[in-house]
């Protein structure tokens, strides 16, 4: 019985073409110029980056006319230290990932933390975007939970935001 056929090996391989939307194309172009653009909802004024081309709260489409530039710097409001080996990730070293709330917005973007030892990471740090390099005018495929077009975040070296300021930012972000 031991040589019975117990399993079927199969590979599901499918090709997909997912053309980027206009908003996504413009965002990519901006990333190439190390600029961060967002759409501002004309009804509730919430900001979205990358621009979605709509506001999911107000159910309205947004277009080029709602595009604005936002600062690629902000405050680290949360972080985690990951051991990539344990999550089937690429690379092998311990690394830190964090949520940065962009200045003047309620947007937090997640990304790898660069230029700082994992042990030294703390909330309140001021961070700026580390941009990805475009490949043939396109963003390298990333996927996952990270921010699109931004490889990660590095400290600006400016003084930290206080714990109170961080809590205030988080509170503001949670308001409807």
């Amino acid at each position, binding site marked *: 019985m031991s040589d019975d056929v117990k399993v079927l090996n199969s590979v599901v391989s*499918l090709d997909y073409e997912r053309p980027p939307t206009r908003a996504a194309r413009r965002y990519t172009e901006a990333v190439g110029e190390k600029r961060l653009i967002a759409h501002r909802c004309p009804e509730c004024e919430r900001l979205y980056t990358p621009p979605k081309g709509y506001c999911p709260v107000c159910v309205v*489409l947004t277009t080029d006319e709602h595009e604005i530039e936002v600062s690629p710097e902000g405050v680290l409001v949360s972080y985690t230290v990951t051991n990539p080996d344990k999550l089937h990730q690429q690379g092998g070293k311990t690394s830190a990932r964090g949520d940065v709330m962009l200045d003047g917005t309620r947007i937090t973007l997640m990304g790898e933390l660069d230029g700082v030892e994992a042990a030294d990471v703390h909330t309140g740090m001021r961070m700026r975007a580390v941009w990805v390099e475009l490949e043939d005018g396109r963003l390298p495929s990333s996927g996952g939970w990270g921010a699109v077009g931004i490889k990660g975040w590095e400290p600006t070296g400016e003084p930290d935001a206080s714990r109170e300021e961080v809590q205030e930012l988080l509170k503001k972000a949670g308001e409807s």
Partner: protein
Amino acid sequence: MRDVAIVAFAQSPLVRRQTDFDEPQMIMPVVREAYEQSGLDRSQIDFVCSGSADYLAGQPFAFIRGLDAVGAWPPLSESHVEMDGAWALYEAWMMLQIGHADTALVYGFGKASAGNMREVLTVELDPYYLAPTGIDCISTAGLQARALLDNSDYTERDMAEVAARSRRSAMSNDHAQVKKDVTAEEILAEPYWVDPLRPSDCPPITDGAAAVVLVAGDRARDLCERPAWIRGIDNRIETHYFGTRDLSKSPSTEVAGKTVGSGDGIEVAEISSTFSHQELILKDALGLQDSTEINPSGGPLAANPLMAVGLIRIGEAFNQIKNNGKQRVLAHATSGHCLQQNLVCVLEGD
């Protein structure tokens, strides 16, 4: 049974490839139009249900992005079926039946253009006995068409008549994708694609979305001049492996149809005959008379946005009551290869 009516229906342009919009952008105007038609504000919708399928885009959790399109903030009482939106409508209808909601929004969407549908839909088959053979949706339909030709008096000309009539009917449907003043002779002159199917016996690949608003009780009359009352809705499924069933018949459609009274005084039927021969099978299973007008919209042969196409049949049937003064109409949705699963619903005017 609680009286539940459709009061609004909206659909996107049904096109070969929607390049301007991603899924939420494609759904959003449709949902807005449905809200506007119904006269209901988002905050007045008690329940939302959607239908979509992850494998159309090849990404898990497609419906989470769909949720972006309906205004899920503040939170909604909401559900999702990995099926055509017609089944989402069934779930919403059930919520209204049990009184947990008085109004509901239902939507379905799909961008079939993202993948190669002949290969993608193979993944919908038994992963041990069918998918490993690579058999595709045109070939499985071909096996079914042959079974029908062998086991009935229908001919390839009958199939071509269906295909031609669908494309001609679509000429008066603003949303349809394939519209053509074509004759059965012209179709019979086409070379086979997968014999006995010719290209015109098969549906186009379509991107699209649709939305429907359901309302319970007299309120439906306040919101819509001529609401369409859901008099019966049922769905049935058959065995999966083709070799275990008679492909020339659709007993699941027959049972669902009998449950809802499909054989009785239907003026118009909007049915999900994805392939020309399937209209012949479905017409017999539903017991439709020759006087019943079938697919005046053109049906799936004129536009086939997967996961929305069945909901669109229900919406088109509603339009027959609302706009064309019809009194008793039928809608049908299907799921899987070779009509494996079928949903039938009968709508009536006041």
